[in-house]
């Protein structure tokens, strides 16, 4: 019995832990539930680049991420999808026109020379830009806090609308101020007729001394000449060579005075500064992305308005709760005492599963909710198997305690085999399926694993502990209509 008590304490502890997790870590909602736009971008091949490598896709992803950040939407994400696609998520955006325009363009990388006499203005403009970027960050954090309360406000959604719109307007204006700054900075630099097309490579490498890193770049033959000229013009002047990606300054190195005669020749150069390994490779990826002349096409756009999403949450929540209650009632009425205990196990199951979603950062979408509701059915199945088996044993004349034990023991191979086959199917869906299918497979798999624990260990412990209490030790509580009590418990 001591072991059962211990398990009981463990289950209680897990349930309390789950409640704490559910109330502290917010559930991540998919765009179909919170509203927003999801775009699928396809990176297309060209005659020059017939296949897209992982590196190419990573570089394009970096460029797209920069553009998405420019949109001023909070909590965006850009993920790789298969070999040549990117999935962009823009929460809260219900008019994707701007995004569709901006994202579906080929990257533009330019090398420009700072014009003489603009040193001071360059500094000022840079400060203004940084100021704006900090403002934007603060506004976005505020928006994040607002959106986290979305689930709670799903029932009275109109209150939040006004402050939301105000915030959105503020973000918009800071956004355009940033674009203004970027344009102003670009105007300080003169065109040098050198673009990303001439760039053949860019990679991060450690510097020969110290533990700093640098970025090495290489140009093709036509680019090498232009780069030599460009670098000669600004060498030793203190003015910068501006590298612009999609009209935004990403690096502004100066050129050492020793190159004032010839410029940097040979088509190779390194950009050094206070780079660590991460920031150096980040710049290298940006440069590579800008050098790729890969067209990007928007192949899929899905927009869900925020009220529509809230409506789906509300309805699905109602459905889930009603479904769960029906199942609980059925179990208690049909299986009596074990049914009630299984209900307790089922509630523990629901808590643990929801907590697991939050801990693993599972994004809950409509199919995900469906997967969860469905896994409740699976969790019940294990208990149904066990209790049916227990009844059979009781009918064959075994004692109550033995019947319960062998009910669990004998049903276990069925439960194991049926759950493992479901997990195999989930694994296949997760690895090969597309977005929707993946989310569904993940929630179902988490549910199945947790249900193995709650339906077997949890309900078994509860049953055995109750059997320790004399008032529960009645076979009629387990199997109504059992012909004359076969043996003393």
């Amino acid at each position: 019995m001591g072991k059962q008590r211990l398990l009981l304490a463990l289950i209680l502890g897990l349930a309390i832990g789950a409640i704490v997790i559910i109330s502290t870590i917010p559930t991540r909602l998919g765009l179909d539930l919170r509203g927003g736009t999801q775009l699928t971008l396809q990176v297309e091949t060209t005659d020059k680049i017939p296949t897209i490598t992982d590196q190419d896709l990573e570089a394009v992803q970096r460029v797209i991420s920069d553009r998405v950040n420019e949109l001023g939407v909070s909590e965006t994400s850009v993920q790789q999808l298969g070999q040549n696609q990117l999935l962009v998520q823009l929460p809260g955006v219900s008019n994707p026109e701007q995004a569709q325009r901006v994202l579906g363009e080929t990257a533009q990388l330019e090398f420009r020379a700072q014009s003489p006499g603009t040193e001071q203005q360059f500094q000022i403009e840079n400060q203004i830009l940084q100021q704006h970027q900090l403002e934007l960050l603060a506004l976005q954090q505020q928006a994040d806090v607002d959106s986290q309360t979305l689930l709670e406000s799903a029932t009275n959604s109109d209150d939040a609308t006004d402050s939301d719109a105000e915030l959105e307007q503020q973000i918009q204006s800071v956004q355009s101020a940033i674009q203004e700054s970027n344009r102003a900075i670009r105007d300080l630099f003169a065109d040098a007729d050198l673009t990303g097309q001439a760039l053949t490579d860019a990679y991060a490498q450690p510097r020969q001394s110290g533990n700093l890193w640098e970025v090495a770049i290489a140009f093709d033959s036509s680019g090498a000449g232009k780069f030599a000229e460009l670098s000669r013009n600004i060498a030793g002047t203190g003015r910068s060579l501006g590298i612009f990606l999609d009209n935004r300054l990403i690096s502004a190195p100066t050129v050492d005075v020793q190159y004032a005669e010839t410029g940097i020749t040979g088509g190779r150069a390194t950009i050094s500064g206070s780079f660590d390994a991460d920031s150096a490779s980040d710049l290298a990826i940006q440069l590579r992305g800008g050098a790729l002349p890969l067209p990007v096409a928007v192949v899929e756009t899905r927009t869900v308005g925020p009220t529509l999403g809230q409506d789906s949450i509300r309805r699905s929540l109602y459905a889930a709760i009603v479904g769960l209650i029906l199942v609980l009632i059925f179990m208690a009425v049909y299986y009596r005492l074990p049914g009630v205990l299984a209900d307790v196990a089922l509630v523990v199951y629901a808590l643990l599963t929801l907590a697991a979603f939050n801990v693993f950062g599972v994004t809950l979408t409509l199919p995900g909710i469906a997967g969860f509701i469905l896994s409740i059915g699976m969790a019940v199945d294990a208990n149904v198997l066990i209790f049916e088996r227990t009844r059979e044993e009781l009918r064959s004349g075994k004692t109550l305690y033995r019947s319960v034990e062998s009910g669990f023991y004998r049903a276990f191979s069925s439960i194991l085999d049926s759950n493992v086959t479901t997990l195999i199917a989930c694994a296949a869906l997760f690895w090969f399926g597309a977005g929707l299918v993946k989310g569904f497979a993940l929630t179902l798999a988490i549910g199945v694993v947790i249900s193995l624990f709650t339906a077997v260990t949890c309900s078994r412990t509860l049953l055995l502990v109750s059997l320790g209490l004399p008032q529960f030790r009645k076979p009629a509580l387990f199997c109504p209509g059992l012909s004359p009590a076969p043996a003393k418990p």
Partner: protein
Amino acid sequence: MKLDIIRQRSFWWLISSLVILAGLIGMIISWQQFSAPLRPGLDFVGGTRIQVTRDCSAANCDAPIDLATVRSLLADEDLETAVIQVTGDEGQSLSIRTRNLDVDEESTLRASLESEIGPLDNRSIQIDSVGPLIGQQLFASGLLALIVAFAGIVIYLSVRFQLDYALLAIVALLHDVVVTLGLFAWLGLLLEVEVNSLFIVALLTIVGFSVNDTVVIYDRIRENIKLHPERHINDLVDDGVNQTLTRSINTTLTTVLPLVAIVLFGGETLKFFALALIAGFIAGAYSSIFIASTLLAWWRVKSGKAVAGLTEVPQPAEELP
């Protein structure tokens, strides 16, 4: 209640054959109409669907949205082939499905809708724009997942049970998938229900659950064979099915209950998803009880293994109990 399934098996097989046949006929008719076995939704054929609701705090909502106005507006944009539906309780919502629109076309359409029928509520808008290749990718990846899942299940069941169990479980599973496909072929023909990517998710789920059901019954039959290797497979299968019958019914009931809740109260998008699952699960319970079990008995008799004790252990010395 005790089912005599082995003796009645031609009857159960006939029912399944008729249902599948009806489904296949539905799919053939669909094929002639849509060049696909089911009515394909936006996800599979590509296109743009715009669903908007008029903002009644700013617009005049006394009358429902006028279909003719919208139709002439679409004709001006060269979109005569668009499918237009006025929806919602008061006819204040509009659903337009067209070929795949690019950014400019889409924003022009939105602008002219706003000017003709009044301001639209940005918060309840839904736009889906799907390129023609997305559907193929979805279908291909779904099919691949399905084949891998089949292979995995066959391997696992061959190890835990035997190869014939594994293959017959797959037959039962295909039965459930085909029944669900048939139902939706007819729903597409009669009620214009389209299948979308969620339908693929539903089919894959049915696969998982159908095997689950079958495995539980096979597990019981396997146990019975072990306990009574001298008895005929027909009796053992009959016993196994009857011993697990209450469980099969109760589990199907508890799984279908929440799904019924979704059909009744859930959002529009999930309704047909849940309906597909209900159909698949009921077919799954049926096929596990009546098809998978009888097929196993039939196969064992046919391959001369009707009594396990005589064939599995060839040496008579080890056969003694």
